[in-house]
Every structure is written in C-alpha cells, then in structure tokens.
C-alpha cells in the first residue's frame, strides 16, 4: 500500500518562488496593516515608526525569501508566507497589549522584544537552511539529539536555574534570560524519534500477535514506548506541565504509527496515556497529592464556581478569556475597542483570546486555518518525500504543530482542560518563536528535497551489460 515515491512518473514540481513572493507581500500587508490598525484603534493615529517597522518586517521576510530561493528553490511556497502572516499578526497583538499595559502602568515593551526574537528566529531559519543542505545528515545524530533533548527537558528541575512559572516548572533562568528548553527539545525529539524509528520500524511492525482484530506489538519492542510513557508522565508529575506531557507522548505515538503502519500502537499508547492520566486524576482527587491535576479538571468543568468574589478565583483567567471571546462575537470589537488586557498572560498563552475579542470569530478561524495550512503543507511534504527519515521528520513536526495548536487553543476556548503551552508564532516568548522558525526551516528543507525532480538514471557504460554502473545525476536547478 505504501507508495514510496510521491512524485508520479513524469510529474515535476514547479518551483513556485514567485507565488511565494506574492503571498509574502500579502502576509506583510497583514502584519503591517494590523500594526497600523492597532495604532488607529488605540491611539487614533498611525504609529510614528510605521515605516521603520514595516520596513524591518519586509527586510526579515524578503531576506528569508531570498535565502529560500538560493538554498531551497523547490521548497513549498506556502509555508513561509503563512508563518510571516502569523508572526506579524502576533507582533501587532502584542503591541496592542503593550499599549494597554503602558496605560495601566504595568511592564510593557514586549513587542519590541518579540521583534528582536523574530529577527533571531529568521537568522536561525536562514542558518538552518544554509547549514543543513540535506536533512538526511541529521539522521546521524539520532542518539546525540535524543540525549540532548532529555537533558534539556530535565534542566528546569535542576535547582538554581529552574524556575516555576504559574505552577509549571518548565523554565530555566540563565544570565538574565529565561528559556523554555521544552520548546527546543521538541524539535530535537522529533529528529531523534524519526532517526530511531526509521531504523527499527521493521522490528516494531512485523513481530507481534493478533488480539481481538488488533495487531499487538511484541513485548520486548514495548521498551521504547514504555520509556517515552514514563518520561511524559514524569514531566506531568515533576514539572506539572500537562501540555508538554501530552505533546511529547502524542508525538511519539503518531511517529510510531506512521513508521510501523500499525494502528495497534495507537491503541496501546492511547490506552497507556489515558490510563495514566486517569490514575493520576484518581490519586489527585482522592489523596490530595498532585492536587493541581484535579484542580485543572474542576476549573475546566465548573469555571464559574471558581470565579468572582467569595470563591478562590482560580478560574479568573479562563472565564475572563471566555467573556472576552464572547464579547468579540463574530467580527470582534476592533483593535483598541476591547479589553483583552483583563486576561492574565493575554500576550502569551492566551493570545488567541485577545484575537477572539478584538478580531472576533473571524480572526480566530483565520488563525486556525493558517495553522491548518502549515500542518497540511508539512504532511504534503511528508507524502512526497522520498526517504523514510524525511517523511517521519515532516509528520513529526506537523504532529507537534497540530497537537500544540489544539492543546493551547482548545484550552483557551475550554474544549479541553487548560494547559500552559505557547501558541506557535503568535505568543510572546523567544524560545518558542525561535524553535518554530527552525521547524519551518527544516520543513522547507525536506519539501525542497521532496519536490526536486527525481534524479535521472543514466547508464554510464551502455556497452558493458555485465557491470552496469548507474549514477544519479542531479538536474541543474
């Protein structure tokens, strides 16, 4: 069933760089337009630094485009514009909240900081494209990267540099900077998993027995999945971070399933996760240990019991976010007409609530669709990619993206219990933004390789029938 080459016989992808440039201009219009709208809505005038701001955005985005043109000419033309639009919109919303915080005398200036992070992100994006000329090189570092990822995940638990924010111990503070190492670990883990699974997929896929119409894997092959399960639960218990836990475990399951083509892994893994979560909830709600788990669920189910005077006010953030989004309605209040600053962390975890309030359901759906595009383009790259490792990396990155977006937006809109995760490209936060730009660079690199015309097989020595040497020739780009 699996069709190894995505490229149909004779079909050659076009480069589509001009399409990308056109879409980038639209994306710039979104970013710069949103910034101007914030100025008009909040202060009544277009910001004085409008030209410089728009210029800087344009330099970053067009710069990235030129590097893509040179280093990855066949790369997917939609990804970069979508990301540019999201990043620009995020900057405008953060700027809008800065203005509100400034008026209230609170710390502000996050937009400027975010613009610096975006610059760093684009630089790393460019560096990734230039340094990683072939993604298969990364497969060599499977175990190294895996180890680094686990170390990064453990860092916040190290006394002295670990920091607890909002009850989740997922931050480190070093030399005045705070970092969320989980965001970087995310990328490394995808590569490590892909490298591991592409090698072991046959063992995992073929051995095993059948039980109730489900192919179950062999006992000894359960080792890695059990290890990952323990790590996820460990993150949940020790770092109190339900979101990352769900993200890593979900990522691993998705990759296992794709690598082995056996849904049995999903059943096993899914039941393990649900079982683990249920046991944790049971412990949490009956013994009082790990109380935050039961608390989160309770806040999710009965937010209004935890809101307002006379209650513990723990649901202040989600309820205010709901009120804000409800108030935004279909088309939103417009920049400057709402009060998104009422929601704590409105410019990071809850930035979707800010968008929902001031840009309305329309804005939220647009953002979800943009994320959908990213996932769709990544999966499309996975489909046409010619090597298993590349496929797995693409699926992994797409899966991380989809799960993260689902968990954070679902949490903010009360579809699932709230967990702390950043909204990719929108939220304020350096680690996340930079890591996500690198993810996009990797996706572009793989899609460039995948969409490139297949190497043509040319017989060097047509005369000798016994020893025919076949050499792959790269079609000049």
């Amino acid at each position, binding site marked *: 069933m699996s069709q190894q080459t995505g490229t149909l016989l004779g079909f050659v992808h076009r480069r589509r760089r001009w399409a990308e440039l056109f879409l980038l201009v639209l994306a710039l219009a979104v970013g710069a337009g949103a910034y101007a709208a914030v100025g008009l809505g909040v202060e009544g005038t277009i910001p004085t630094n409008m030209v410089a701001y728009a210029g800087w955005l344009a330099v970053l985005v067009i710069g990235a485009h030129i590097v893509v043109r040179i280093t990855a000419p066949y790369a997917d033309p939609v990804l970069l514009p979508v990301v540019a639009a999201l990043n620009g919109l995020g900057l405008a919303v953060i700027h809008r909240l800065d203005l509100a915080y400034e008026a209230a005398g609170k710390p502000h200036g996050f937009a400027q900081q975010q613009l610096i992070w975006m610059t760093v992100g684009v630089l790393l994006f460019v560096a990734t494209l230039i340094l990683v000329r072939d993604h298969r090189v990364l497969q060599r570092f499977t175990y190294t990267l895996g180890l680094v990822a686990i170390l990064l995940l453990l860092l916040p638990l190290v006394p002295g540099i670990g920091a607890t924010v909002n009850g989740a111990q997922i931050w480190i503070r070093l030399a005045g900077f705070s970092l969320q190492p989980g965001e970087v670990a995310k990328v490394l883990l995808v590569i490590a998993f892909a490298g591991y699974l592409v090698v072991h997929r046959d063992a995992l896929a073929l051995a095993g027995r059948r039980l109730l119409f489900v192919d179950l894997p062999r006992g000894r092959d359960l080792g890695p999945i059990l290890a990952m399960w323990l790590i996820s639960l460990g993150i949940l218990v020790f770092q109190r971070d339900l979101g990352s836990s769900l993200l890593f475990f979900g990522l691993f399951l998705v990759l296992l399933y*794709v690598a082995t083509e056996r849904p049995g892994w999903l059943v096993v893994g899914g039941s393990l996760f649900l079982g683990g979560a249920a046991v944790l909830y049971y412990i949490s709600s009956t013994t009082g240990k790990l109380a935050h788990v039961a608390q989160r669920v309770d806040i999710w189910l009965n937010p209004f019991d935890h809101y307002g005077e006379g209650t513990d006010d723990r649901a202040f953030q989600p309820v205010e976010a709901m009120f804000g989004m*409800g108030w935004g309605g279909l088309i939103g209040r417009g920049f400057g007409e709402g009060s998104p600053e009422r929601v704590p962390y409105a410019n990071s975890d809850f930035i979707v609530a800010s968008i929902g309030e001031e840009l309305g359901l329309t804005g939220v759906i647009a953002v979800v669709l943009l994320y959908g595009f990213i996932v769709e383009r990544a999966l499309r790259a996975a489909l046409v990619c010619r090597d298993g490792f590349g496929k797995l990396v693409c699926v992994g990155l797409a899966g991380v993206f989809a799960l993260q977006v*689902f968990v954070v937006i679902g949490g903010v809109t009360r579809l699932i219990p709230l967990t702390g995760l950043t909204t990719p490209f929108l939220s304020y936060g350096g680690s996340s933004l930079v890591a996500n730009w690198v993810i996009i660079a990797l996706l572009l690199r793989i899609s460039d390789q995948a969409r490139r015309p297949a190497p043509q097989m040319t017989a060097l020595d047509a005369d000798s029938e016994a020893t025919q040497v076949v050499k792959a020739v790269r079609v000049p780009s």
Partner: protein
Amino acid sequence: MNKPIRTIAIFCLLLFLALMINATYLQYYRASALDEHPLNRRVLAAAFSSERGAILVGRTPVAESVRSNDRYEFQRTYPQPYKYAPITGWFSYYSQTGIEKSHNAVLSGDDSRLFVTRLVDLLSNASSKGGSVQLTVDAAAQEAAFDGLAALGEDVQGAVVAIEPSSGRILAMVSLPTYDPNELASHDFAAVADTYEELNEREDQPLVNRAIQTRLAPGSTFKIVTAAAAIEELDYRADSQVPGGSTYQLPETRGESGLIDNEGRDCGSDKIPFTQAMGNSCNTTFARLAVQVGADKMLERAEAFGFNSSYLDDLAPQAQSSFPEEMGQASTGQTGIGQFEVQATPLQMAMVSAAIANGGTVMRPYLVETVLTPELEPLPSTDPEEISRAISAQTADVLTDLMVYTVESGTASPAAIDDVSVAGKTGTAQSGQDDVPPYAWFTSFAPADDPQVAVAVMIQSAPGTERGEIAGGALGGPIAKAVMEAVIEP
C-alpha cells in the same frame, strides 16, 4: 508510510475542525449568554464608559453622558436630578432603573433600529454612540407638580401624575421623597455602594416611584368609578335623584362597624340630586349605589378603567391597581367609596380622569415620545393606543358635569381656575391603621369642554400637616391646579 500519513492528516483535520466548531459555539451561540452573565465586568465596564444617548424633555437633556477624565471615558450626569429621578432612574456600575433601564438598548446603541448607525461606526472605526430618548413630559407641568408637592413640607411622601387624555402621553410624573441619581452614577464605586445602601434602607423609601409603584386605598376619588358604573348600569343622569341620607347600614351587617356616615357633610335624607351627592362626596350614596350595581358589575367597570392589569410599558416595575374579584354585599358597599380592598396607584387615578375627559376611551399611558438616532434623526415611533372603552360618551358627559359641579360648588373647589371649567374629585382615604394618617387624593381634568390634561395627586403622608386637616381638596387641589395651569397656559 503514506497510508498512515493520510490517516494522520484526517486526524489533524478533525482536531482543527473541533477547534473551529468550538470557537463558533463560544463566540456565536454562547456569546449573548456570556455577555449577559452578571459577573461579566468587561461588558459592564464598556457599557459604563460608553457614550450613552441623552434622555430629553423637549430639547433639554435630563440625563446625558459627558466626557470624563478618569478611567472611564464618559460620566452619566443628571442636570435636574431630584425632579426627574423617578422617571430617568439611574445608571450605575451595578444597576439601572427607570428609562435608563427600560430603554437601555436605544441609549446604549444596541437597539436593532440603530443597526445602520452601528454599521457606519464600525466601518469608520468610530466608537459607537447611543440614540436619544425624548420624553412626553412637559417641563412646566413637571416643575409645577414638583414644586407644589415639595411645598407641603420637607418630609412629604406623595406623587403627582399628569396625562394628556386624548393620547395617554404622560405630561408629569413626580414622586417624593426623591434622590440624586448623580450620586449613584458616580465613578467612585465605594461611595456609590454606600449611597445606595443608605437610600435603600431609609424608612421613607426614596427609591420607590410612588406614582406607579405605590398603591393605596383611593378613597372618595374612586366614587367616580362607582358613579360611572351606576350611570351605565342604572341609567342615572346628572339631574337624577339618587339615594342620600346621613347614615347607611351596609347589608348583612349590624352596629357601628357596618355603619357608613358622611363625616358631617350635607347629604339630605331620602333622595338627593346626583350633583349634590358627588359635590359633597356622600359616602351613604355611593356605598348604596355600589350595592345596587353589584360586585360583578363594579369589578367589570373597575377593570375597564385599568384595575387588575398592567399597562405602562416604559417604566418597570409597576404595581397593579387592584379591585377585589369576589366579595360579599357589605364589602361591595365599602368598595363604592374606595375602601375595603380597593387599591390604586396615582397613575391609575389619573387614567380614570383621563378616560372621562377622553369621552370614555382609556389610552395606554406612555413616557417616550420619540427615539432619536445619534444624529438626532427621529425613528418611527408608535402611535397612541386605545386600551379599552371604559364608559360610553354619554356617561362621560354626565360624569364631567358631576365633577365640574364638584369643583364649582363642592369639595374640590381649591382646584378651580379662573375662566376655565375644571372637573375634579377629592379623596381622603382611611389607611386602616390607627397610627398611620389618612391619605389625601385629588384627581381632576381641564378644561372640561376640551380636556388637555388630567391629573392625579396622592399625598401618602405630610408630617407638617395636622391629622384633622388632611383632606384631598385642601392638600391636593392647589397642586392639581398648578399642574393644569402649567399645561393650559404655557
């Protein structure tokens, strides 16, 4: 590996679909429920700081939003606070009352009739402004009513209502004691809470709009309704002879408690002219007439005038005036003179007069003349509406004659105006409790031949006045006169 990738793609699609459906549910289907949630400070704060439309009397605002320099953009102010508080109500961070509440949609700009304006504001990115509400109130009449009632003393409790009989437009509505809505609309929330608490707990209930929320025994003013029933059912004329006498023993009773007298007024012996009975407010006559008409017909007539129903849409809450639905003959006799379980609001008694002045047709009372867009363009307004025909035109004429006689040579003489024929009726109702003084009532309309205004005055308590001197004519008459003059002679 492509098959699982396609499965994953579908799975991701489902995830994103779930997000979009949930967002739609939250921001579309649940939006209004969330907006109306009592704890939703966001909506409150925005409403509180927005530029609401004005409440106008003529062209003068009695409630308006002015720019404010604190954390809210606009401050609601009431330029004539005490005089108009019962009508405008207040607009505070915590609650709204009066027109501020009943016409909130227009004032805030959310009314569907202001949709086009809202759309233009949206497109031009201007913050929206509410529409204005123009009241039917006549500034001169309102002032006369307020000054007249206030002149009775500092602690007076009472109300005045004036109606234009032909339409039902409310020309004046005053209730004392009153309060300053500015103090409740203040941005200093702690002070607002204190003020509200204090006003709410005061024994004289300044927050109650006595014109529509207080119902008391109407006493002798109810004799108009009894007379209306008698004329309709028993075919009396203004010059007919009606039963008189200095005392009347109610049917099925014995002794003092069932004995009706006239407190010294001359009501003849056997038969007296109808005019004399009305002019001297003869209890014996009207108790006997009520018994003759019967409980059912009395109820029917009272309900035709508006008792036992609600009719005012522009202000809430309002008390329903009541007439007992089942009772014996003795009680029926008592209802004939406005006692027993008959209770009326001042607005109801003004409507009784207005109905007679309008040839028997009861018009729905209303307070809002027109609704104006923020650009001050009038929106289509509802026309005056008939509620019922209480009595025939002939009966109305007879009643007018009786009431004119009462002003010219009876108990209602304090309301007489030079060169204008005035129709009126006094009332002094027993409170039914020994330590509570009687209530003074007065209702009238003028000019009798071309009625322009019908008034009801109710004085619940006037501590400055001796108990023996509390009488509808003496206390209420001059106030009614002043209000009628204000309307007739602008």
